């Protein structure tokens, strides 16, 4: 298994080297340009396979096989809720969705991280301060609560690259940004018919 992973990484490394210009130097450049500040440590500048592959400048062709392998690897690594319950409390989910703090050097590491969903997505129709980098999720609950739908949504939150490799969205589960309970609460905020997200008939 370890050999397989190493093999994948070597392949990825080779494909990365073909489009980067200064990949040998870039780590040195990074190391000399930043300093650790509070919880934002220098180790954060090391890229994993997803980050490395997804740093190709726009329009750069990437090898399809590499992409498929990596996407499948991410899909296989998704951790579903241990108790099989996808849905928590939508009211707590609303707080997570609106909270933009967490993991910045200026943030208090003893406080829970936010999901900052509103930075990029429209959700509840009465919240006007929403970003547009991601699609609108207003009325998301209309998709229903089938097992397939819940698992799809969970996976998207856990690791967006499992479906859409090199999406701009953070990997809230896989990178440990949100806890399992927080993810459940956000799930409820998205799909619960009582959630403000789904109050679309005004």
């Amino acid at each position: 298994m370890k050999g397989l992973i190493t093999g994948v990484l070597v392949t990825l490394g080779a494909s990365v080297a073909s489009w980067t210009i200064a990949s040998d130097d870039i780590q040195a450049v990074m190391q000399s340009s930043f300093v650790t500040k509070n919880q934002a440590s220098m180790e954060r500048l090391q890229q994993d396979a997803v980050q490395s592959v997804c740093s190709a400048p726009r329009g750069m062709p990437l090898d399809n096989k590499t992409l498929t392998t990596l996407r499948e690897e991410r899909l296989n690594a998704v951790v579903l809720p241990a108790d099989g319950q996808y849905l928590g409390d939508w009211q707590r989910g609303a707080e997570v969705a609106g909270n933009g703090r967490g993991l910045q050097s200026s943030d208090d590491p003893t406080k829970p991280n936010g999901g900052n969903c509103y930075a990029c997505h429209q959700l509840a129709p009465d919240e006007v301060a929403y970003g547009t980098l991601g699609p609108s999720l207003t009325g998301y609950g209309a998709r229903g609560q089938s097992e397939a739908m819940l698992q799809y949504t969970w996976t998207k939150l856990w690791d967006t690259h499992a479906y859409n490799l090199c999406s701009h969205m953070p990997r809230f589960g896989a990178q440990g940004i949100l806890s399992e309970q927080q993810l459940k609460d956000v799930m409820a905020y998205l799909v619960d018919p009582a959630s403000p997200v789904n109050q679309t008939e005004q």
Partner: protein
Amino acid sequence: MKTCYFWFTLLVISLSSWPLAAEDGVFDQYRDLMGDDNPAVFVIDEGEELWFAAQGPKSVTLDSCDLGLGPGVTAGAYARFPRYFADTDEVMDLESRLVHCMTTIQGRDLETVTEKPYSLRGDLGTEMEALVTWLAAESEGAKIAPEQTHAAERAMYTLGEEIFFYRAGPHDFSCATCHEQSGMRIRLQALPDLTSHSGAAEAWGSWPAYRMSQGLVRTMGWRLRDCFRQQRWPELQMGSEVSIALQTYMAVNAAGGIMTAPGLKR
């Protein structure tokens, strides 16, 4: 003057509580209303005084500092940055060039002059911020024309492009996450597309800028540092290679645009 501040405070209050979109429209109105009354004018004056103030162990001014157009030539100099300097054999941004002049011409201590280049909230501004603001004003209306003749300048652009797309940190953010598409916003904040000429020209040309929410002039060096804070990365150092490379990337994409700094931003 007191009346002026009263209206200004009132505007800041009304703007910060403004409910909805048309956001940029509101700030355009504000800019129109202020006319030439950007509070940065005070910082411009301070910067000019500092340029001509004898400082350091050698007790000399910065008037012999060469910003690329010859010793003491300040008009239009900022619009040509970042650029290669033969005396240091480095591509430099304005901030690192100023540090060079302070340490060599004035004989000041490197650690001291680089210790706190940017204000913290509540501060009244730093020497670096004032100097950059005045020098930007000395380029107001000039065409953005960073040098790309030396091989090191072209390499710096290429490095900047690579860093622009480099994803890292717990959130996988790069500069491109927010700045490679047009017409997008984060919450209500409009995001310039820095890969396009128009987006880069508007952004590069309007920094340094007076930030009303902070009551301070902020430089592009600070803007980059704060972007990386939000990217959950460690702290970007003033005059570092990453900072200069990204500034080169932006300035070259912006080439042909017009310097409007010091800008006025929320």
